[in-house]
């Protein structure tokens, strides 16, 4: 049976509020974020907000915020930024809690992860063909000419 128009509009309205909250986290992850305040801003009770957010994104707002911070930490670590600077740049105020969370998610400490990535980037500059399936490299004419 089709849903009444009012129900559909309410559902769309709620979705838009949840999406706005997610986009707010995306834009402000590096700042202190009070998730209860976001729920207030979205006109939800905290528990209703968490339930809707988890239904939409598979994680609670707090889990999502932590994931966004670690994703951005990875991007900054790839630039060679010192681990301590990265920690503060993504909104953590404790190196130990940042490192612990980073290790829990990536299985490596930030320093080890960074060294691995910087090494990979350096190799990519020197020998990019090592990172491309040969069939694609050949199709593009990137493989060196060989004399048989």
């Amino acid at each position: 049976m089709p849903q009444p128009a009012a129900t559909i509009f309410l559902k769309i309205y709620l979705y838009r509020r949840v999406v706005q909250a997610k986009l707010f986290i995306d834009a402000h992850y590096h700042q202190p974020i009070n998730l209860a305040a976001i729920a207030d801003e979205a006109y939800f009770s905290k528990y209703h907000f968490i339930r809707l957010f988890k239904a939409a994104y598979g994680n609670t707002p707090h889990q999502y915020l932590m994931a966004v911070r670690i994703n951005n930490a990875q991007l900054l670590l790839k630039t060679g930024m010192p681990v301590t600077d990265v920690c503060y740049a993504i909104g953590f105020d404790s190196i130990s809690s940042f490192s612990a969370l980073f290790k829990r998610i990536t299985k490596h400490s930030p320093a080890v992860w960074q060294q691995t990535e910087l090494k990979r980037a350096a190799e990519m500059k020197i020998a990019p063909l090592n990172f491309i399936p040969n069939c694609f490299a050949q199709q593009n004419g990137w493989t060196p000419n060989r004399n048989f």
Partner: protein
Amino acid sequence: MITKMNHVSIFVLNQDSAFDFYVNKLGFNVHTDASMGPGKRWLTVCPPEQPELEISLMAINEGMMFKQEAAEQMRVLVSKGTFGFGVFECNDLLATYEELKAKGVEFTKEPTKEFYGFEALFKDDSGNWFSLGEKKQ
């Protein structure tokens, strides 16, 4: 026995613009971004929960793969929306639809209940189209 696909190609009109679309709008991760010489670039991205699948954003350049005429024809075909490259999946279609619309992604079909599932269609910045479906619970 074939067990997996780990690379797939999407032909794009501009790799810089495609990078912005797939990374900043769709939220994909960059897997490999290697310069292959002036104007040549190997760029692959992965959906966030599928790091083993590299999607190669291939520029349509005149060269080994395309002769000049073929490259021009390919560009026209891509920009006209000839190619549909696959089906992406999300946890919640309505939420993802609202988010991508807010980011400026163009949808050619709003979320619709079909007999095979809940689906929307969108285009990338080049004109390639994709289906977006909701993960079955």
